């Protein structure tokens, strides 16, 4: 282990940790970002969960609506924190010249990206804790110890996939002004066919197949699976885990492509 952790690598890892702290400080001071990340999903959680309290979903074996909806809206919250924030945030950093400034310093590029990803993971952890706390305190949703491993696996893979995809998509975002348009265009339609807001048992097979081909459905479904009272075992849903793993690989590839220097230029 010590052979791998050379002094210079150890110093760089220290830089990543300290940079995560600055990214966090920066993040929590900006109210607008906090509203998009926390207030929106929480607002939807409270509105829908309250409206449907006591409702049972007969198509899903009679489970309470909130056991379905809370993990679904958590998926929405995680996507907002990872994909949306990364894509729009990177476009803004690029437009403002901050990426260029960072590039002129000795901070290695990988260390800066690692710090931004690390900071995102912390925000995902925070929003997961807040939403599950609200869900269990007010809407009777239970985090079960038995299905916790499956829940964690989906959370980790979902965060990895959507964070890397968020950086990857910036290649197709020419400036910060179009970023919210492109990001929402790639997310919102999919959330409706991906059973984030309500069950979609009756939808045409073609739409269901489209939903399954993209990563939102596996994330929402994997979380809903872990919260379904009928789920036994450790809560692992092989299909969803496999889909998210493939999307993580695609995300890493797209991220590396997006970070690669355009021909002849260092960026």
């Amino acid at each position, binding site marked *: 282990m010590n052979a791998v952790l050379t002094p210079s690598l150890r110093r760089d890892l220290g830089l990543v940790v300290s940079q995560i702290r*600055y990214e966090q400080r920066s993040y929590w001071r900006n109210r607008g970002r906090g509203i998009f990340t926390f207030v929106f999903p929480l607002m939807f959680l409270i509105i829908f969960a309250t409206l449907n309290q006591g409702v049972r979903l007969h198509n899903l074996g009679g489970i309470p609506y909130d056991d379905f909806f809370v993990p679904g809206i958590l998926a929405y919250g995680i996507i907002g924190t990872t994909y949306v924030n990364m894509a729009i945030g990177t476009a803004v950093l690029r437009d403002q010249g901050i990426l*260029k400034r960072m590039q002129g310093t000795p*901070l290695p590029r990988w260390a800066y990206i690692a710090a931004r990803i690390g900071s995102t993971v912390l925000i995902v952890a925070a929003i997961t804790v807040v939403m599950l706390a609200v869900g269990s305190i007010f809407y009777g949703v239970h985090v079960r110890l038995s299905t916790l491993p499956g829940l964690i696996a989906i959370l980790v893979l979902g965060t990895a996939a959507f964070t890397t995809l968020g950086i990857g998509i910036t290649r197709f975002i020419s400036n910060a002004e179009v970023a919210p348009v492109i990001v929402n265009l790639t997310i919102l339609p999919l959330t409706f066919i991906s059973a984030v807001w309500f069950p979609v048992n009756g939808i045409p097979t073609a739409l269901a197949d489209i939903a399954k081909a993209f990563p939102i459905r596996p994330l929402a479904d994997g979380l809903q699976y872990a919260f379904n009272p009928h789920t036994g075992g450790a809560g692992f849903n092989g299909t969803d885990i496999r889909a998210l793993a493939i999307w993580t690989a695609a995300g890493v590839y797209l991220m590396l492509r997006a970070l690669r220097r355009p021909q002849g230029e260092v960026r």
Partner: protein
Amino acid sequence: MNSSLELAIEVRDLHKTYGTVEAVRGVSFEVARGEVFCLLGPNGAGKTSVVEILEGYRIRSDGEARVLGMDPARSERALRERVGIVLQQCGVQGDLTVAELIEMYGRYYTRRRSVDELIELVDLGEKRDTRAKQLSGGQLRRLDLALALVGDPELVFLDEPTTGFDPAARRGAWSVIRSLCDLGKTIFLTTHYMDEAQSLANRVAVMNAGQIIASGTPDELGGRDSRPAEIRFRLPSRWSLGDLPDVPGERSIAGESVAVMTREPVVATQRITTWAVEHDVELGHFSVNQPTLEDIYLELTAASAGTTETSSSDEGHVNQEVSA
């Protein structure tokens, strides 16, 4: 000659092409260690391309470039440790305070200057705990300067460092830059302000249409030191040009305002003032001037623009295409 020891920057036959546009067309120059070198030129002349190649942001199309003995295109960390950069219009994390930003950027360097020292140097003491997004344009530029100096660099690139400063802040920045020279730092400066180049630079080079069209010390650029001086004064209307004594050079008058262009300004001044004292004439607004750097600069760039075809290519536009 051991170039890596004596030269901070060495550029030979540098070319930069964007698509079919040749933004830099064979530029060569050297900057010695400890020197303040100033690159002048109109917008679109190729200055920014040259600077960004040296800073490692762009890759040259052809030619050679060495910065502190290293190839800037390889963007080595060792080079970035030793170079400070003030970019034009470059943002900063707006939700962090001045002190936090200096501390944060300082961590990236193995050798660094203290936060307090830098805040004092750029005179941002009162804004120490203010978030960057609440700073004025001039204060942001001073923060830029602090961030460029945080790694105690040997070589500092300053791309129009005082744009948007009020006159007092500009003088302040100049004294900071001079103090850097006193410490033996090398400064590579681009500016639109001729007084800035005059006041700071040991050597200037003028670029136009991708080429260096003149270089030298600010005082001798374009033969400035051998140009005729201009003596100007107001001659009360009861006197005419013919009443003045013979002086070397050419005389002209417009209204009461007399101009004498002469290569012997001392002799001419002495004759004119002696005559004035003898005849008890008050010569208002009396002045003797060499052509300013700005006069020479405008002359050089205007002459060069007339002889080149591609000078109208807008560099800003080209850059946008590249970064899109």
